[in-house]
């Protein structure tokens, strides 16, 4: 178990230091496209095809990743562990 933890820590460390390998969006472009990327993700579409470079940026930028996770959870009303998000948007108003 200790060894598995250390392996994961090593992988995380190397990935964080080296960042994504592929071409990526800038933070500004990421924010511009974030809502579309989330909607395509929730519609079971192909978000990486819809917004090329977004996935790489979310790997490389912790703050943008946090913003993506936050929006995805809030809009879907369910967090990564399948729990309902209190006050989440799933029970909120529909589009105008």
């Amino acid at each position: 178990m200790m060894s598995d933890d250390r392996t994961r820590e090593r992988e995380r460390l190397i990935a964080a230091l080296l960042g994504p390998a592929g071409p990526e969006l800038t933070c500004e472009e990421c924010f511009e496209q974030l809502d579309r990327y989330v909607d395509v993700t929730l519609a079971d579409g192909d978000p990486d095809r819809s917004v090329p470079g977004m996935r790489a940026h979310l790997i490389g930028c912790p703050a943008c990743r946090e913003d993506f996770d936050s929006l995805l959870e809030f809009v879907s009303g369910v967090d990564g562990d399948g729990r309902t998000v209190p006050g989440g948007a799933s029970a909120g108003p529909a589009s105008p």
Partner: protein
Amino acid sequence: MGNANSNVGCVSALHADAMLQPEQLAGIDLFAAGQAVRDLLVALGCDVTDHGLRDTPRRVAGTFAELLSHEPFSLTTFPNDGAYDQLVVIRDIPFHSLCMHHLLPFHGVAHVAYLPDARIVGLSKLARVVELFARELQLQERLTTQVAECLQRHLRPKGVGVVVEAEHLCMSLRGVQKPGTRTTTSALHGLLRDDARSRQEFPLAPDGLAPPTPDRGGLRRSAGDPTDPGQRNRPARTARPAGPRLPTPPCRADPRPARHEAARPVRRPTADTLTPVASEPVGRFEVSRRRLALPHLRGGDHDDLAQQAAADALVAVLAKLDDFRGESRFTTWAYKFALYEAAVNLRRRAWQHRELPLEPDSWPDIASRALSPHEHVAESELLGALCEAINGALSAHQREVLVAITLNGVPIDVLAERLNTTRGALYKTLHDARRKLRSCLSAAGLDFPRDDRGHAR
């Protein structure tokens, strides 16, 4: 923040003090802007190697960054203990902004009035709200509406009136070329819109013109050709009878519709749509996600923060309302701004009294942190080479940024604020540092992940 919190909690979220900040602060990439200016000069046939032009891209980028930036501030409101029930008017607030169609300045004065209800606001804050919305690419109509809506939402007065008079250089220097022409726009809410007697107390309101339009409570007019002596000699800041309307408003001389207008969905969202969207759930959600990062706060503080985050979020979404292009669901789009605004403020709050670990001495020995002597030799070699490259190949700034963001978990927006730069510029630094590291590992013949498989989503 401290002052803001002292007033939050005793009133509803819409009355809570709000730390207001324009969106542009987070999005300015000075390096990219400089490159773009250089490209523009080349495209215009200029010799960018000329001595006089050599530093122009950097200067122009800095100028636009300055024109599009504004210090955040708290929209402090107070209980109206004296039950003051007459009009509060601030006249002749000077401002300058940038026309979003031509990137040319327009400048003039704003007159702001409100009829208090349960809350009043610090007088200087009225001028600051004008400044806040002026420091972005703007239309005069939108600027007027945004100031009025911001005050209506945060102050909940009995009435709000905003009149803006401005000269547009895009009309003075190009196109029709009529210098001195001033355009007046207005936005009236509540009693200032519906009650003629209240409106008469606001002498700058355009009462002599057509009645306000029912949807936005405002109108726009241009004080036509300055060669008309009746207009040239008229005092600049008195209520004026209707001048001749120009066939096209100054910033709309280009017959092509603006991008955001062309793609606007049929059912355009309105400010009222946002009340449930950008409201307390957003604040509660973001605060809940960050409880561990805010350990020094008590339970009641979390509620205050949630209310403040909700109020900030609402302002952020209102300011962007005209930009919605229908490329995603409206609710997803609106929540994006709301959550971002809340997240930025809470990240700042979580780090506000903390030293940022930037110094080379403080960054951890990543090899010893991650490996035991019995483990994989190749990975040990890889991490060792990474340490060496971080120390030897990166500039001090690149090393600081890399260490702070990837190893010490400093949020990039917090770091950008402390280093007085932008999120975009810092990410470019991080990107360049990573490229150098990959290049060093390749040169050393080491095997390392060369694609993004295995990463989540």
